[in-house]
């Protein structure tokens, strides 16, 4: 049996909610347990209401939990807001001025006072972590080791102080300890805890991306900030642009010069990049853009989650051109997707868009560590060893497969000529009608090979009559829902897309044909459903849609699916 505990730590922004969550996560990770940790916060810096939702298990987790075993309330408001979410048998730890109520469902603990007793009130969060772990039945030494490690850099005094604070909390709650069923012991695990944003940064770096021009925007900033720790050891440059237009243009400029580059943005910023996207396409300059979706339109809910940019990403920029659109479902998948995005963008000389969202970008999840760096990397540039007036280098030679030989400027005798106007093979402006047809067809000719590069969707019980269909970050939620429905003897399968565009319409049509399809998406119009209708001739589908800016939970999908299955 799987042991499975869900905690929520709630309070105001600036109260260090995330610190507590991180500490708990770290202890669990060191004990070989799996976590799924989600942050929920407002678009403000201090105050308001925040929480960290932490699920812990001894088996791999695909989704966050929602019924709470432990609710940690840094203020009373948090208790009022979340007490209904406690499952029966759950307990709330509530910060108080002085020791108070103390029963199986509510435990008032004076965090600040205990911290002061330990030596400094700033360790109140560590006190809370100690209390929680006591309740979870964790041996104190595990926490102590994590704290020593964590504060090692800040000197022994700080470390000791925190251990003392943790002990205060731990002792205060010791007698509330319950058997969670976990085996608590320090274990070297082959797992990693990553967020999607972190994974995207790592994947890009592993793909030899060296230049990250960007403009800050939630939730994309996290991708870039996760590059920062590596700028000392790796020769990469992060540059904050004056706006998103500049960011995408810088990436294109760098790519033209042969350096892999990417930018990351969200909705409004992606809008501003769409002209550049078309330039990359027309000049056939490789380009990778991470669009970390957030609920809109316009500024919308800047710190919340949503999946409503699929069709925009596929159709963005005037006229038509081949592009890749990916939407990984987990951090590890994000890492792999980023590597592929760079590889494929360069191989086909097209833009690649990687869709993330706040839920995937910010959630920290334990997964098997399958991360690798390739021993060597394939680059798609031709030697620049020829070219003169009579036989110039033809940047846009009419290659049958659409992929003309690409060279680097100033790397040899061939002049590299690139323009966003329609151009002849040499790269000069051409208004000729036949040339326009030839060039349009050349660009479009890449599609068949691009389609072959697409991984098919993940199929779970594909023979079931009813299929839940999703894409991107809802993956884990759907997987768990299918499992639970199965436990309730409902034969339901799933089709989970990670590679979205271009689409192998025939293969996908076969999978979806003659099924009851239930689209599970975080948007209002079922964008994937509409896309499948267009591409694979799906005529009708049901939907489970959520567009309140909050992530799905498996429970919700299970419940809605039951209502829908005919």
């Amino acid at each position: 049996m799987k042991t499975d505990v869900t905690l929520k730590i709630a309070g105001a922004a600036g109260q260090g909610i995330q610190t507590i969550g991180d500490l708990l996560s770290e202890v669990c990770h060191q004990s070989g347990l799996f976590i799924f940790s989600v942050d929920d916060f407002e678009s403000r810096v201090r105050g308001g209401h925040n929480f960290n939702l932490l699920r812990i298990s001894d088996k791999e987790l695909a989704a966050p939990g929602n019924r709470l075993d432990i609710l940690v309330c840094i203020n009373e408001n948090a208790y009022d807001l979340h007490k209904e979410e406690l499952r029966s048998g759950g307990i709330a730890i509530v910060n108080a001025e002085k020791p108070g109520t103390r029963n199986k469902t509510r435990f008032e603990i004076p965090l600040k006072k205990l911290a002061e007793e330990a030596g400094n009130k700033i360790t109140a969060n560590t006190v809370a972590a100690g209390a929680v772990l006591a309740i979870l039945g964790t041996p104190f030494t595990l926490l102590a080791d994590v704290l020593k490690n964590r504060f090692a850099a800040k000197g022994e005094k700080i470390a000791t102080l925190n251990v003392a604070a943790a002990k205060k909390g731990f002792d205060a709650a010791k007698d509330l300890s319950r058997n969670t069923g976990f085996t608590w012991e320090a274990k070297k695990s082959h797992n990693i805890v990553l967020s999607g944003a972190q994974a995207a940064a790592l994947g890009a770096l592993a793909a030899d991306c060296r230049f990250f021009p960007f403009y800050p925007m939630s939730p994309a900033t996290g991708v870039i900030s996760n590059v920062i720790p590596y700028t000392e050891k790796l020769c990469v440059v992060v540059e904050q642009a004056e706006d998103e237009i500049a960011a995408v243009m810088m990436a294109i400029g760098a790519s033209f010069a042969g350096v892999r580059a990417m930018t990351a943005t969200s909705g409004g910023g992606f809008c501003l990049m769409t002209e550049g996207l078309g330039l990359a396409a027309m000049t056939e300059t490789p380009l990778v853009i991470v669009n970390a979706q957030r609920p809109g339109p316009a500024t919308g809910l800047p710190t919340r989650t949503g999946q409503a940019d699929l069709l925009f990403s596929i159709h963005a920029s005037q006229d038509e051109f081949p592009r890749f659109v990916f939407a990984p479902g987990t951090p590890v998948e994000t890492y792999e997707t980023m590597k592929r995005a760079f590889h494929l963008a360069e191989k086909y000389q097209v833009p690649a868009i990687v869709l993330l969202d706040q839920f995937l970008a910010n959630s920290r999840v334990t997964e098997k560590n399958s991360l690798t760096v390739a021993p060597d990397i394939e680059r798609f540039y031709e030697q620049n060893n020829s070219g003169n007036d009579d036989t110039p280098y033809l940047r846009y030679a009419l290659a049958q497969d659409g992929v003309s030989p690409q060279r680097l400027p100033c790397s040899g005798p061939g002049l590299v000529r690139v323009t966003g106007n329609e151009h002849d093979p040499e790269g000069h402006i051409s208004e000729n009608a036949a040339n326009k047809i030839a060039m349009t067809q050349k660009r479009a000719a890449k599609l068949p090979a691009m389609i072959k590069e697409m991984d098919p969707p993940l199929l779970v019980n594909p023979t079931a009559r009813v299929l839940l269909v999703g894409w991107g970050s809802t993956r884990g939620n759907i997987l768990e829902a299918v499992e639970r429905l199965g436990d309730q003897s409902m034969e339901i399968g799933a089709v989970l897309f990670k590679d979205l565009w271009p689409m192998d319409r025939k293969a996908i049509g076969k999978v979806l044909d003659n099924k009851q399809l239930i689209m599970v998406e975080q948007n209002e119009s079922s964008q994937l459903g509409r896309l499948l209708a267009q591409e694979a001739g799906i005529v009708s589908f049901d939907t489970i849609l959520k567009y309140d800016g909050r992530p799905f939970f498996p429970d919700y999908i299970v419940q809605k699916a039951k209502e829908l299955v005919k």
Partner: protein
Amino acid sequence: MITSKEFNCNYENKWCPGCGNFQILAAMKNAFAQQQIPPEKLTLISGIGQAGKTPHFLKCNMFHGLHGRALPLATGTKIANNDLTVVVNCGDGDCYGEGGNHFLAAIRRNIDMTLLVHNNQIYGLTKGQASPTSSLGMVTKLQNSGTPSSQFSALVIALAAGAGFVARGLSAESGHLTELIVKAMNYKGFALVDILQPCVSFNKINTLSWYKERAYKLADTDHDPRDLAKAFNLAQEWEKSLPLGVLYEAAGTPFHERVPNLKANALASHNYDSKLLTDVLLQNL
């Protein structure tokens, strides 16, 4: 020995006969020849407009980008490979209108490149609308009651934004312009040459003779280009007199010396290093 002829290319030129752009093109070729930079070692980046077409009309590596966006494109190229010689051609609308924000940012980065603005005080390619440098009240087909914005003084703004090399040329003074381009290219950092350029098709006010009547060369005066306050004053001259030459030049730290990872070698020059990446990225996870 590289001569300016070496830059000739047989792609058909598309400018109007008599356009000032021809002389700018000639000055560019001369400047490149003077510095003995062969076409294959030259990267020209441009925006969209008549000026933006320039790189097509000579031999070079080139990226003819988007309207208003030549500077960030060039910035990316230069950050990727600092060994490239990057020269940017923009129109006045291109650079000071659509691209105004990038103009400010490029100056503030002090990115090491040369910007040549073909300033004809009009939107040429789109057939004669007012540009930011058109004078207040100038009547055009679309500004039929006169341009309602005051004139964009590129040189003053460049100085205000902290530019280290600010010069003005006149297309018709091709020799003088050649010198300016050479100086700008030799400057370590962002160098602006704003080039007055008659548009014979659409600007019937700021004609060649209009410019000639007002233009004078700073070299013929005692102007010291290190004098910022004086440069500000000179940059503000307009209706009556137009100083040509280097208004301001001061050494500064170019972008690639401000960024640790750009100081030593060009980003493009590193090899993929699987071991380093594994160690740095995967070891501490």
